[in-house]
């Protein structure tokens, strides 16, 4: 076992013995994401590096502290990519953080989320045991799917020290089309197109304009363009635009005084209070700047079959939409099973554990 992993395990064993909380942290680009930050920082970046990458297997295995940028560079050299477009929100983001938060970018509604590309994971539990779940193969149903459970777990079950991810070829070509459209027309277009075999890999609506990205072979893109119409953006502008959306450097995310809400709704949910100021994922992700009471926004989201997260801005309420009582009970029981003394990222996923 390598020294960096051994040190992390020692640290965890000692903290568990002392029942002292630990705050698992990679590059810190997503410190804002979660309820509260408690405990001594464990910097995961020391345990880094690509363990295995064979392009023809479509699998990369990396240590948790590996910078996202390093992985994306390695993949790009072989014409491949992480299809879920993980947002970095800053230069130092690590793959461990990307998987622990489970966040995905603009391509999520079309290619799948981070959890859809996790094939396996290593976890150090509160006793310092190294546990390996899943593997490096595409299909694996041996045992419960713990590696996917860890995706989005915010470190509350333990430290993710290694992950294996399915990767895909980068699209051969991409084009981005713009349409002048109000919110209702844009949503109607997105829904109509989604039910057709079109190579759409991202959609967004903001400020009276719909933006649609197509990815695939040149023949597929030609055929799709003829169907869709719209005005093409030049390649450099388009790439920069989608990157800004993914990394949230886009002005909408930077500016504004009111709290920023992230609403996850059925794509076809009607437009009302939750209509949103910026829409992604064919309508399934809606960003809202609003100082309406949290309870009101959450009640609306619930009524529409979704949830509302207080993404940025004054914390007048919990960040995450509350769990149902039975869900909360299951969360607490899982937490007790994996981390009886509550040393890992206490309070980060919920104030209740």
């Amino acid at each position, binding site marked *: 076992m390598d020294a960096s992993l051994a040190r992390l395990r020692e640290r965890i064993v000692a903290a568990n013995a002392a029942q002292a909380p630990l705050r698992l942290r990679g590059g810190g680009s997503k410190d804002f994401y979660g309820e509260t930050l408690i405990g001594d920082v464990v910097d995961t970046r020391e345990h880094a590096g690509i363990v295995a990458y*064979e392009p*023809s*297997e*479509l*699998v990369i295995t990396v240590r948790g502290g590996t910078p996202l940028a390093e992985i994306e560079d390695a993949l790009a050299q072989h014409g491949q990519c992480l299809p879920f477009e993980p947002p970095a929100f800053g230069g130092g983001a690590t793959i461990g953080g990307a998987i622990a938060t489970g966040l995905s970018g603009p391509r*999520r509604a079309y290619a*799948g*989320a981070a*959890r859809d590309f996790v094939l396996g994971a290593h*976890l150090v539990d509160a006793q310092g045991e190294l*546990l*390996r*779940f899943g*593997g*490096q*193969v*595409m*299909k*694996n*149903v*041996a*045992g*419960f*799917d*713990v590696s*996917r*459970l860890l995706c*989005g*777990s915010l470190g509350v*079950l333990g430290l993710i020290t290694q992950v294996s991810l399915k990767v*895909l*070829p*980068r699209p051969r070509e991409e084009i981005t089309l713009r349409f002048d459209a109000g919110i209702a027309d844009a949503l109607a277009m997105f*829904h109509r197109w*989604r*039910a*057709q*075999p079109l*190579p759409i890999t991202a959609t967004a609506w903001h400020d009276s304009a719909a933006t649609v990205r197509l990815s*695939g*072979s040149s*023949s*597929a893109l030609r055929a*799709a363009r003829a169907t869709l119409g719209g005005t093409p953006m030049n390649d450099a502008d388009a790439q920069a635009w989608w990157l800004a959306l993914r990394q949230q450097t886009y002005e909408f995310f930077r500016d504004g005084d009111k709290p920023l809400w992230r609403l996850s709704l*059925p*794509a*076809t949910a009607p437009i009302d209070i939750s209509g949103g100021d910026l829409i992604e*994922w064919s309508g*399934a992700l809606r960003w809202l700047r609003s100082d309406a009471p949290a309870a009101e926004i959450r009640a609306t989201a619930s009524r529409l079959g979704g*949830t509302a*997260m207080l993404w940025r801005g004054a914390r007048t309420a919990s960040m995450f939409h509350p*769990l149902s009582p*039975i869900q909360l009970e*299951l*969360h607490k*029981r*899982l937490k007790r*099973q*994996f981390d009886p003394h509550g040393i890992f990222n206490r309070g980060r*996923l919920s104030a209740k554990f």
Partner: protein
Amino acid sequence: MTASDARTEPASLDARRAELRRALAGVLPAACLLCEAEQTTPFECDGLSAFRQVPLAVALPETEAQVREVLRVCHALYVPVVARGAGTGLSGGAMPSADGLVLSLAKLNRILDIDPLACIARVEPGVRNLAVSEAAAPYGLYYAPDPSSQIACSIGGNVAENSGGVHCLKYGLTVHNVLGVRGYTIDGEEIVLGGAALDTPGLDLLALAIGSEGLLMVVTEVTLKLIPRPKVAQVVMASFDDVVKAGDAVAAIIAAGIIPAGLEMMDRKATQAVEPFVRAGYDLDAEAILLAESDGTAEEVADEIAEIEHVLKAAGSTQCIVSQSEAERLRFWSGRKNAFPAAGRISPDYYCMDGTIPRKHLGRMLRAIEEMEKKHALRCMNVFHAGDGNLHPLILFDAHREGEWARADAFGAGILELCVALGGTITGEHGVGIEKIGSMCVQFVPAERDAFFAIKRAFDPAGLLNPGKAIPTLHRCAEYGRMHVHGGQLPFADLPRF
């Protein structure tokens, strides 16, 4: 191989059955409860008939409320519950407990809603896999996972097993195509995981529930993702004079940046078994054939097929035939889809394995299987989901001949151990069930198995849902070790462990 233990003495079973019958009579119509041996015997096994056990009783609820009440009764009486879909599973996951109830979800078979705008179907668990695509077809949509048993297998069973099919590389497994489930915990509490919205707060319990083999909850409603039916599909059938070359050709296709909709391989023993049966037009002189499918728009498919052909020829294919019509495409596939029945035609019994390995080891695995054929004096035909590295070796045997099942069992265990040693897994899509419970001891160390039990305890503290399946106890592994590990040495000790 009848499961039994000390708790299941006939007299105590009769008393338990009577007690359960009285309690369930209050929550189920009489026609929905089967207690007599001639009624319960048809439920003694699933698609893996080597493992059988007659249950205490069988409940066939017609409504979600009845499912909830049945669970409450069983929880109160401490009766094990084995949920069952269509019974097509291949790992004995639905094999009953002698002292337990089989909870059949077969009567919950309504398609509740097809929403063509949202591209979503809401269905009850007893709906057949293919019925979803049939109902969605008028809207140009379908449900992607297509296990070979799709005309019969149910969505509830697919969720329990995380079923795959021949199009997984491009379209994913059940876990990638189920948006949400609703169901009940063993104590009858309603639980909703996921839903029509893509992100839900908290831990991804949906991922945990899918593929949990009936150990965590009973699902009563499933929300499925529907996708647009591609306009065109075409398949290339390529012959190879060497299985290793065929394996390398698979890697070459992926390396060229192509993700075929399907990528399947059959060895000569498999093509020779199916050809007289289905007349698919397979090249019987080839050591292996590959089927590579492309789907999409007409332009896209034309480009991709040309590219696939080019790669296959460069990889040494001796013959490449491209389907020229939908009928021909289906004919090429018919042999692959009928490989299992074909095995049944040439052998009294067959034992289907389901390991997955990194694709690069296909050649090595095939050579090892050849050696094992000699060692165990049994034939084995090989069909692979080559794109996923998921193997389905079919070990041919005759259960009526003394010792043949034991040899087939040992042969299978040997294949699975090699899968683990090569960095793969003992089950790609069929599940652990009762069948591979011993092989789980090879793939996971005690601390990992403890973690599985920890999850089980969180959902089902009393351990009543499908007990004895999917996760082996320490005791069970000690027994397996005595049987299969000789002199303290793991098989293939020279190979690195992953």
